[in-house]
């Protein structure tokens, strides 16, 4: 921007909206500060003490004035409240058709993995004009993913997933900061978000294409390394563990009569602490995988399990950073699907098909969760 006014770059679809609210509030603040200062300066000159022992006439107050300066600030502040609240819905309501990237924070670095397999550290490449959704967690303490040019940030909290999304509007390299104090090298936990033209992004993707996609890595973990597949059979046979096909977004009935909507946090909890929510009709025989899988492997497993529900991949409604369990509210900003990249880059847009084609998925499943 103009170099002499300190103002940050503006590079996302909602950064202009944030600036508009900011400038409006700067205006309101300036108005009131000037008003009060002017009145005070006028008074202290006009009513300065002229005789040492003069005593001015007392004035008790005025109900009219009191109501006036209670109601007017209230109306103004309610206006700002509504404006700010509607803005945050734009910022935190993740649209359905966004490109997913997994983010793991760690003292003191950011690790990214694209669905197409590319891994990056402290640098995130994204295409311009495309909605990008980040699924974030951390291996250790709380961090906060902050890109000033996009005017968005969200804490990254251990033990749960938070989500953030943006659509970059201008190619360039932008600061990525950790905004939540996280220890010794907090100020070194920085990086860049590189926004590229779709064609450049294509080139970048193909130049780094030899890495295993998280779905494939998750599948390998699932079938080989961890041996999950020996109980969680694709067709649900054997009865030891529920089949996971079509799990994501469905309602799972639990032992004890409760039910839960299967989202990322639920899958995560089930892997790490299988007894916490036992699916009805199954025995508590699954061991915990706490300490055996890293945050990144967890994300890979989840991304594999999500790929078993193709209709629902990245379809969980998440109003980040809130953990939403209501999949039915429509996103505010998904009216126009992203242009170009979807056609030009099918490999980046849709995750690979799962190994088997899923059967019909009932909306409510009784054996559909996990042990």
């Amino acid at each position, binding site marked *: 921007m103009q170099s002499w006014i300190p103002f940050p770059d503006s590079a996302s679809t909602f950064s202009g909206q944030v600036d508009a609210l900011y400038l409006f509030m700067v205006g309101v603040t300036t108005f009131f500060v000037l008003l009060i200062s002017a009145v*005070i300066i006028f008074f202290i000159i006009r009513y300065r003490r002229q005789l*040492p022992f003069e005593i001015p*006439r007392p004035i008790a107050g005025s109900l009219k004035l009191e109501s006036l300066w209670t109601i007017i600030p209230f109306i103004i502040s309610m206006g700002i409240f509504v404006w*700010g609240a509607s*803005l945050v819905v*734009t910022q935190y309501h993740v649209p359905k058709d966004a490109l997913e990237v997994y983010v793991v924070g760690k003292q003191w670095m950011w690790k990214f993995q694209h669905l197409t397999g590319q891994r990056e550290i402290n640098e995130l490449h994204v295409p311009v004009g495309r909605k990008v959704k980040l699924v974030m967690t951390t291996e250790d303490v709380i961090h906060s993913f902050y890109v000033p040019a996009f005017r968005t*940030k969200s804490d990254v909290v251990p033990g749960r997933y938070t989500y953030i999304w943006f659509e970059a509007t201008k190619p360039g390299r932008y600061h990525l900061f950790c905004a939540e104090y996280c220890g*010794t090298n907090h*100020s070194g936990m920085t990086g860049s978000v590189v926004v590229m033209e779709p064609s450049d992004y294509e080139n970048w993707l193909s130049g780094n294409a030899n890495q295993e996609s998280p779905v494939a890595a998750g599948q390998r973990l699932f079938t080989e390394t961890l041996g999950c597949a020996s109980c969680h059979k694709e067709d649900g046979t054997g009865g030891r563990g529920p089949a996971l096909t079509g799990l994501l977004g469905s309602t799972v009935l639990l032992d004890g009569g409760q039910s839960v909507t299967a989202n990322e946090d639920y899958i995560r909890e089930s892997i790490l602490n299988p007894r916490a929510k036992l699916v009805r009709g199954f025995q508590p025989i699954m061991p915990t995988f706490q300490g055996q899988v890293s945050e990144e492997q967890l994300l890979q497993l989840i991304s594999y399990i999500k790929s078993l529900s193709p209709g629902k991949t990245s379809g969980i409604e998440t109003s980040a950073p809130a953990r939403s369990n209501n999949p039915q509210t429509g996103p505010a900003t998904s009216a126009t699907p992203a242009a170009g990249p979807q056609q030009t880059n099918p490999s980046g847009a849709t995750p690979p098909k799962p190994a088997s084609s899923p059967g019909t998925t009932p909306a409510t499943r009784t054996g559909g969760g996990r042990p």
Partner: protein
Amino acid sequence: MDTRTTSAPFEPVTPTNYRVNYLNARYGIASWLLTKDHKRIALLYLGSVTLFFLLGGIYAMAIRLELLTPQGDLVESNTYNKVFTQHGILMVFFFLIPAIPAVLGNFLVPIMIGAKDLAFPKINLLSWYVYVVGGIFTLWALVSGGVDTGWTFYAPYSTTYSNSYVTLAGLGVFINGFSSILTGLNFIVTIHTMRAPGMTWFRLPLFIWSHYATSLVMILGTPVIAITVLLLALERTARIGIFDPQLGGDPVLFQHMFWFYSHPAVYIMILPSMGVISELIANFSRKNIFGYSFVAFSSIAIAVFGFLVWGHHMFVSSQSLYAGMVFSFLSFAVAIPSAVKVFNWTATLYQSSISYDTPMLYALGFIGLFTIGGMTGLFLAAMGLDVHVHDTYFVVAHFHYVMVGGTLMGYLGGLHYWWPKISGRMYPEGWGRFAALVVFVGFNLTFFPQFLLGYMGMPRRYHMYAPEFQVLNVMSSAGASILGLGVLMPMIYLIWSMRYGRVAAANPWMLPGLEWRTASPPPTENFEVTPVVTWEAYEFAPPEELQVIGKFEPGDRPDYPPATV
């Protein structure tokens, strides 16, 4: 001036000073360390609070020096983290929270309501000792190696990952909390049961109302931080899972419990200052506060609503969006009573008689800075905007405008205003005005650039930063050196004046408040006889009509005329 009456010239019948007062009633270290006199305890607090303020100030200077350059080349990251953490802990828990209530409040609450002492003098003394013990624990943590969690102690960093002396510092904060609780308890009981005959609730000076509201917050909020810090220490030592998700806990629960106290704690800091400002505005313009009851009840409203807004510190912390909206709404609501105060103070000046004495300069500065501090709070309460500026220098600038521009200005203004009563001497007026001006200029130069830095996206608690932030950081550091000089000046000349200052009259400002109707410094019992109050708050009368409480020994030097123009 048709609206003013004047009574000059006349011979003053102002109360002259006791030869025996609370300062010289007894001598010796024991007479101070074992005193039950609220005035002496206030002085003990004054000394210890100043000490912690100086320490915290040294840390602040270290921060600003470090941030002169983007590379982080003065100290190591670890050291820097400890420096800002300790700056925060010392300033928040050991200066801002006790400063006005424990020093000015302790000294003045009993005198202003016509009581001989606080209801529980021993508990009052105990509160100071508790404060000192808490301080010693914190200092112990500091000299052992320091704490690096940030004053907010966020879990799981504080419970699991930090290698510094978190438990010890936490213990210091925990202990110090009880000092706050005991002070609040004493004030509430004193204000309820010990008002002089005729001192009805609506004749109370607004200083008392604000201290009453503050005490409510102290009583209801402080225990929660106590239990929170205790749990943190337990988790750190015994590894039981409360806040660390690896142990089955919830890190966001810590934030809820922490801010449930620490947001209201902001009102512990600012409400007493608002009380001081009400006194200064009314007394130095010789005018009763415009809309007295609105100002009084706005204090209570702030104290009550202040408990319902803690979630606005957590808009980006994975808290539910809908909870966030409720907190955002309530945060806007709590801004209204503060706005009402500002408008009423301004309106009080209308058709008044304004003097430009030092305390009034601080009060006028307060209104300006607090307006900016308060309005920028609305930026942070607006959720969409907070997502961008949360945890950036915008927040740092905002709360320094409220804490320094609000609390410190009120504290310094009040200290000057009541200095003749406390010490029996006048401070040097010229130096006072000059220092007030330096503080105001230095303050703005320090913290205004930080708003711009914050909006540009510089996160707080950064040891190294991107080079484009340097210009504003240098401005801020330059301002800090001016601000540092500004706050050092009063410390020096106030101490100087205790020996060399002009002897103060009992009522140097010619004011009607009860504290000005007794000698300067007051006798141990405050008043010779229990006063009977027949006047309203801020009912200004010609000096010869001011009823003097108690008898005064003839021959004491009347110091007159007052220091006003």
